[in-house]
């Protein structure tokens, strides 16, 4: 594994034409391709690094662990096959959250899921507060259009919610969270939705 293509992508991302959009269309397309190649290479390096960090015992089965970690570069269009599929096929979803900054961060993260009745635990087994937000029609439309446009296929799994939950991540470190299905009370709170139209 190396990061030569990432270095190329980083150089492009800092080029004045790429930042300001003063390049020709076919050059923009070339930039996008090179950024994507850099991202794909970096994704493999990150998966490999996280596999070693999460459990050093995995190193003997390193190749296996690397292939198991996936990222979701299309979260901006609500598209994340690993988070959508895991819960619908009866498995638990494991999310490793890495903090690249030198201070502790407490934030909420969001992943698309296709089922309600889910529960989130941290690596100590403590239940974590979570919330389901219904996916709006506008978000679904954006997702469907762009998956078809850029990936050339139907989005497949129908997601229904964004699952938001609180994470606490140490400086330059990681935390692990497990999302599983749980139909009992105490699972994720579904958001209350209010709509007003004009004076109604």
């Amino acid at each position: 594994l190396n990061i030569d293509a990432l270095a190329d992508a980083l150089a492009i991302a800092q080029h004045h034409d790429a930042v300001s959009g003063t390049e020709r269309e076919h050059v923009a397309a070339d930039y996008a391709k090179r950024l994507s190649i850099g991202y794909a290479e970096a994704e493999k390096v990150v998966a490999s690094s996280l596999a070693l960090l999460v459990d050093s015992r995995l190193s003997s089965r390193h190749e296996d662990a690397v292939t198991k970690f996936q990222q979701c570069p299309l979260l901006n269009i609500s598209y994340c096959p690993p988070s959508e599929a895991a819960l619908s096929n009866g498995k638990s979803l494991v999310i490793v959250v890495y903090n690249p900054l030198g201070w502790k961060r407490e934030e909420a993260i969001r992943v698309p899921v296709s089922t309600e009745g889910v529960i989130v635990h941290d690596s100590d087994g403590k239940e974590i507060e979570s919330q389901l937000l219904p996916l709006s029609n506008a978000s679904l439309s954006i997702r469907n259009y762009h998956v078809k446009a850029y990936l050339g296929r139907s989005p497949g799994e129908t997601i229904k919610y964004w699952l938001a939950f609180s994470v606490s991540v140490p400086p330059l470190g990681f935390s692990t969270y497990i999302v599983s299905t749980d139909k009992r009370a105490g699972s994720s709170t579904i958001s209350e939705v209010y709509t007003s139209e004009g004076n109604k």
Partner: protein
Amino acid sequence: DLTAEVGQGNLKLLYTTNEGKLARYVNSRSLVETSAQLTYSYYSGYNGTDRENQASGAYIFRPNGTFPIESEGQVSLTIMRGPLVDEVHQQLNPWIYQVITRIYKGKEHAEVEFNIGPIPVDDGVGKEIITKITTDMVTNKTFYTDSNGRDFIERVRDYREDWDLQVHQPVSGNYYPINLGVYIKDESTELSVLVDRAVGGSSLVDGQIELMLHRRLLHDDSRGVGEALNEEVCVLDKCRGLTVQGKFYIRIDPLGDGAKWRRKFGQEIYSPLLLAFTEQDGNNWT
């Protein structure tokens, strides 16, 4: 009875339900309370040549009038509330496709996610879409923008300290590149806006910050790029203009308290938490 309150911690945003518009920003911890509006407009681009009426294009920002974007028909305001985040969803018109304002638990800033596009150009006019954050602050023509992500530098409307400026373009002559953020201040408060991408922006009116979020123009500006800024995406031979999605973040602090947030949160915007996914059998969390 005509307002909806969003946010369950120290920060609350008040919306008018009849118009579906942001009206007030209240922070009960820092005791900041001010009127605040978030609106959208567009500049129409000059349709010219290199010889006459210089055209607006990739390099050249040359607006030919400002037009507010009002919602078509009744304003729909959808609010989602829960223990971690409150969200306000709005669709202003078919191409300001979705605007979501979020307030997360424990955070004292509002996050605004915009989906804009495809910008319609059937009328033969290129358009540059902006958002304006308006308060009643008295800012004396002065605002501050980052210098390529580093220190914030003072800008004064229609003035340069190094030379005698003749202003021929009152809008673009006061526009600056914004990579991290922009802020304004008065005697008691400061309004900070941080961005997640390189945009243009300014403060053309006291108490107001504006950001340019998307552009679609129909003419080459004759400054070297050789084509109009009019990119399209095609699916099954059906083409349409680009849609952009991005975020900006708004916070109002007592005077002097904003710098810490701008510096710390600015780093977090550009160093997001990295997520990696895998799965395991059953519900055994261990």
